[in-house]
């Protein structure tokens, strides 16, 4: 199978990969919107969407009512509606950029997905191989570089709409993203300072970061730190990164670009049907990638627990239960499961926060970004730089 | 009737307020001058005083004088002349003002007396207010609010009397509600001069009734409904039609005769429900004839003209006006110098045009008719309409505004009832086009054959033989749908206001006339009353200082001397004596 894959032309490979991303991300975006509606409903003491069902499906016992209560058909109906409803384009917009904006939004959302490893397996040589569409050595740099392009989509949408509220939304989005990108990057730096000891050849690969966190308990030694996740050893960096992540994905409480309360719908006020839907698929994709990156950087990637790396778990399962677990595919699936579990939990946290915290005022967003998070991130960086200098000198 | 006002003024003290009133004025009127209302039921300023309701009880007193020396007795406490208060209440309506009279209208005794009277009146009064037409304008309701106790101490069964007695063709009596004030009895006797009403039986059996074999059928019977302070007498026509608090009142003029009785038109949402008299002491006091009260029915009559027509086919208003203008202007000989006033003696039907104006048109319409006649260089004529005067409020001249035509100069002599000259003109072929402003030419002596010979332009409200024969028919508005003025038999200029909107698509008469005047080359004239009146004031010497807005609601008496020699047909009516011997009534 691997041979077959490798024998394909790289271009064909790329197309298949791209289609896979689209095939995963679109349903995922829709599912997220359903989950969002359900989570918000439950938090507010409501049942949430639980009405729609095709009449013939209602005849299926148990499963029919269950899916109806879950609101699955609402999700399908929403998707169908978005594809088939009339797509009005206001007369006053700049048509080219108006059509371009949602597409531009999709590009970074899907591109970054390719460089995020979502699992790993041991190959025949006992070497851990990452499951990733494109294992780039620049890893995190690529993520940051491409994902920050996403803001162009909002600015384009806001500008091309030729209408005051979308314009304000676009401007706010750009200001906010610039403000928080700095803190985000600075919060990540200590991680890579630790991962790349002085003198060695450095890497920015996310896979390497996870590798770094896959240690076991070695007694009270520095080596034991490898078993701890960076979220535990660098809590400040994790918090700063998390907050910046909320801002970067335009999620509440940093919902500046959309701002229903004061900007009608913000940048997407003039959009409808699937063009509007693309913005939301992009938003949920960004959430997933953000969560994934956070999991890789700070929550140990596909390692189930601190001091309990995936390899040990697979080894224990293989020796005690069935050697089948040692097969690379089983291991890959297990690693994907662990990784996705963590990422999905983070997505739930995104929603949880959204339905808990009210929106910040614009000046509060700016103040928080520039006056609180940025100094904190810089201070954190300096602190870890000093700590590393001290302890590595000792070693 | 109220005692004739004397010029001698006396000072009376009402509730501590000094007020000068003519000697002999009763206390109710004196109090009204002092701004105090004394409640009353049976008293009516235009009827004799009987004092049988006892509602207007007041306390009165006179300055004390020494019986022997006639010297004033001074109260030592206040240093003023002492007042001898009569220990029992007196009725205000029958107490006349005399020098030094002191009155307390609101003392505890006066209030208690009224409360007692009110309680007695309400003992047998049915709880009918929800179904009573008087509710909202009922004196008993008003005074019960002020002086009633709010609940009844009467535990026995209430008196039950007939609810629907037909006193006459237009008046229904509800006996239970009657408080026996006798206003209606006195009105019939004194004003209508038709003494048919009276009370029979005694105590709580007392009942208003007609004399045996008679009924309240005179032309003033509905005034008894107006003056009834409760809901006992109700108008059969208005009965259960609408509650009065929904109705909008618009001041108007009764157009049925040259008396010009002042009226109030009661309408709701464009529908007229009733017409009642409006007080004008110089014209109609507080009365009007029954015949004038049903005129509102012509607004929704079946034979109302609702669409402009050309040769009988409905068309747009603008098309009809254009067709009328073509008919008129096409006959004007172009080489004749314009602006020259036509002389009726020379050429009554110059260019083959005849204009038949109307004594029912308002002064403004007659003014525009005159403008049109001048522009076409012809003279207009009117049709007189004469009936028997009843010496009260219906005069012999049944046109409300013949004098308006005289004042505006539309005519110079009184009109005849037959258009003999026009008939002769048609027969001789001299007349080709007749413009009739609401006058039925067949009623004025023209035959159908004569009508068929000419092109008729008919501006009117209702269908008749002339409208049927008309080449161009332009519907107009009734007196309730437009504003304007009439000049009544006293040469009193009185205004009426638009009570309800006209049917959709029908222009105001003034609009139509103004367009015809413009088409005939008479220049642009305004159809807006305010602007039109500046033109009228400039053109008509008798109306030089008048404007529509400043015309008072009781009218303006014009100088009648230029027309004093004309043999008007009116006989004597209320507040009007003919100056000359009236001509023989046709």
């Amino acid at each position: 199978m691997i041979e077959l894959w490798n024998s394909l032309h790289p271009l064909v490979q790329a197309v298949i990969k791209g289609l896979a991303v689209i095939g995963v991300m679109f349903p995922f975006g829709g599912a997220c919107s359903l989950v969002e509606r359900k989570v918000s409903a439950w938090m507010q003491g409501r049942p949430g969407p639980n009405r729609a069902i095709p009449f013939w499906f209602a005849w299926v016992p148990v499963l029919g009512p269950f899916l109806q209560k879950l609101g699955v058909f609402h999700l399908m109906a929403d998707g169908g509606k978005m594809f088939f409803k009339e797509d009005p384009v206001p007369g006053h917009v700049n048509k080219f950029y108006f059509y371009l904006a949602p597409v531009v939004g999709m590009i970074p959302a899907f591109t970054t997905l390719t460089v995020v490893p979502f699992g790993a397996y041991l190959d025949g040589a006992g070497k851990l191989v990452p499951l990733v569409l494109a294992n780039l050595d620049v890893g995190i740099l690529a993520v940051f570089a491409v994902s920050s392009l996403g803001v162009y989509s909002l600015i384009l949408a806001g500008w091309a709409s030729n209408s005051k509220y979308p314009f304000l939304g676009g401007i706010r989005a750009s200001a906010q993203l610039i403000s928080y990108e700095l803190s985000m990057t600075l919060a990540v730096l200590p991680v890579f300072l630790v991962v790349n000891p002085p003198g060695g050849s450095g890497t920015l690969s996310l896979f390497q970061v996870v590798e770094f966190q896959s240690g076991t308990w070695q007694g009270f030694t520095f080596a034991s730190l490898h078993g701890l996740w960076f979220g535990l050893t660098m809590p400040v960096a994790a918090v700063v990164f998390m907050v910046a992540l909320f801002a970067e994905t335009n999620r509440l409480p940093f919902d500046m670009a959309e701002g229903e309360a004061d900007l009608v719908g913000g940048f997407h006020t003039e959009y409808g049907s699937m063009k509007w839907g693309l913005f939301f698929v992009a938003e949920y994709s960004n959430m997933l990638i953000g969560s994934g990156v956070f999991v890789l950087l700070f929550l140990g990637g596909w390692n189930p627990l601190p001091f309990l790396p995936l390899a040990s778990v697979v080894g224990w399962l293989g020796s005690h239960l069935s050697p089948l677990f040692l097969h690379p595919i089983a291991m890959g699936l297990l690693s994907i499961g662990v990784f996705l579990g963590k990422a999905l939990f983070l997505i739930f946290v995104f929603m949880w926060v959204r339905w808990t915290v009210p929106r910040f005022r614009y000046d509060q967003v700016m103040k928080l970004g520039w006056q609180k998070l940025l100094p904190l991130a810089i201070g954190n960086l300096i602190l870890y730089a000093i700590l590393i200098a001290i302890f590595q000198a000792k070693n | 009737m109220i005692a004739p006002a004397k010029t001698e003024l006396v000072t009376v003290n009402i509730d501590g307020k000094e007020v000068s009133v003519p000697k002999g004025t009763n206390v109710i009127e004196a109090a009204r001058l002092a701004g105090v209302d004394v409640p009353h039921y049976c008293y009516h300023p235009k009827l004799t005083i009987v004092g049988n309701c006892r509602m207007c009880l007041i306390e009165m007193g006179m300055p004390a004088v020494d019986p022997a020396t006639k010297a004033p007795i001074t109260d030592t406490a206040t240093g003023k002349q002492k007042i001898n208060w009569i220990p029992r209440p007196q009725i205000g309506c029958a107490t006349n003002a005399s020098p030094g009279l002191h009155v307390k209208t609101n003392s505890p005794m006066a209030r208690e007396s009224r409360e007692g009277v009110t309680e007695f009146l309400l003992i047998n009064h049915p709880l009918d207010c929800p179904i009573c037409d008087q509710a909202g304008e009922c004196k008993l309701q008003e005074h019960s609010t002020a002086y009633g106790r709010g609940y009844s101490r009467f535990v026995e069964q209430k008196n039950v009397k007939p609810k629907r007695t037909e006193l006459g063709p237009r008046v229904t009596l509800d006996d239970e509600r009657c408080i026996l004030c006798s206003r209606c009895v006195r009105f019939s006797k004194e004003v209508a001069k038709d003494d048919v009403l009276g009370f029979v039986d005694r105590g709580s059996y007392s009942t208003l009734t007609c004399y045996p074999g008679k009924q309240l059928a005179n032309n003033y019977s509905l005034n008894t409904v107006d003056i009834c302070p409760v809901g006992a007498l109700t108008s059969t026509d208005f009965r259960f039609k609408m509650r009065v608090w929904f109705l909008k009142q618009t001041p108007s003029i009764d157009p049925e005769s040259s008396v010009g009785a002042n009226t109030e038109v009661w309408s709701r949402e464009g529908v007229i429900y009733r017409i009642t008299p409006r007080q004008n002491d110089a014209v109609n006091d507080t009365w009007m004839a029954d015949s004038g009260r049903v005129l509102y029915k012509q607004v929704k009559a079946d034979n109302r003209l609702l669409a402009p027509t050309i040769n009988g086919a409905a068309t747009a208003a603008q098309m009809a006006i254009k067709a009328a203008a073509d008919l008129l202007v096409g006959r004007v000989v172009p080489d004749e110098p314009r602006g020259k006033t036509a002389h009726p003696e020379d050429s009554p039907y110059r260019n083959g045009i005849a204009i038949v104006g109307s004594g029912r048109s308002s002064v403004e319409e007659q003014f525009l008719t005159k403008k049109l006649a001048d522009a076409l260089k012809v003279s207009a004529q009117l049709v007189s309409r004469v009936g028997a005067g009843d010496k009260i409020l219906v005069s012999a001249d049944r046109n409300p505004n013949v004098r308006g035509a005289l004042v505006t100069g539309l005519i110079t002599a009184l009109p005849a009832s037959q258009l003999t000259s026009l008939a002769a003109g048609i027969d001789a072929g001299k007349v080709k086009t007749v413009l009739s402003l609401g006058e039925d030419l067949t009623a004025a002596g023209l035959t159908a054959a004569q009508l068929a010979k000419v092109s008729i332009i008919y501006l009117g409200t209702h269908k008749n033989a002339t409208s049927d024969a008309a080449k161009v028919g332009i519907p107009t508005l009734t007196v309730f749908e437009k504003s304007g003025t009439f000049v009544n038999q006293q040469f009193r200029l009185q205004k009426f206001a638009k009570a309800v909107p006209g049917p959709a698509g029908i222009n105001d008469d003034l609009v139509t006339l103004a367009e015809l005047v413009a088409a005939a080359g008479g220049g642009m004239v305004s159809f807006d009353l305010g602007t039109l009146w500046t033109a009228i004031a400039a053109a008509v010497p008798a109306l030089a200082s008048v404007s529509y807005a400043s015309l008072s609601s009781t009218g303006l008496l014009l100088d009648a001397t230029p027309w004093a020699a004309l043999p008007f047909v009116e006989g004597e009516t209320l507040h009007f004596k003919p100056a000359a011997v009236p001509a023989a009534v046709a």
Partner: protein
Amino acid sequence: MAYVVERKPLTLSERMYIPQILAGMRVTLKHLFAPNVTMQYPEERPAIPTGYRGVPTLVKDPNGREKCVSCQLCEFVCPPKAIRITPGSVEDQPDRTHVEKGPQAFDIDMLRCIYCGLCQEVCPEEAIFLQNQYSMTGYTRAEMVNDKARLYELGGTLPDQHFKWDKKKDAAEHGNAH
């Protein structure tokens, strides 16, 4: 009078946001697992409390007779002018001799009605009541105007406390004994 409320200065934990946000998240998490408080409307119906002001209706007295005498007070008092009555006289009925008046037409425009209950309050005959019906639907404007027949159908019969017209009839038969 306006007055200034002094704000408490924020504590350190409040200024740090995070503990406060976590406390809020604790609350929302609790609600996430708490039972729903909503009602599944078309299947579940709310219990109507006494004194509820639903759709205005016309009621008949216990003898099944029309109570409204078309006094038009409700039409007068109605703030949005939803009520329109055409009054008329009624024929003499043997058991209602003194009621001379009744509505020929009685329309309540439910698109205008604001359910204030003033019509019920003002009615001297206790003929109009805002009852339990709360759901009015229709496809056209005309459907949303309740005419007299519909109003009586919605209203039904309510117990009478006064028997005004019965008393009146009694007085007519046995009274006048003075």
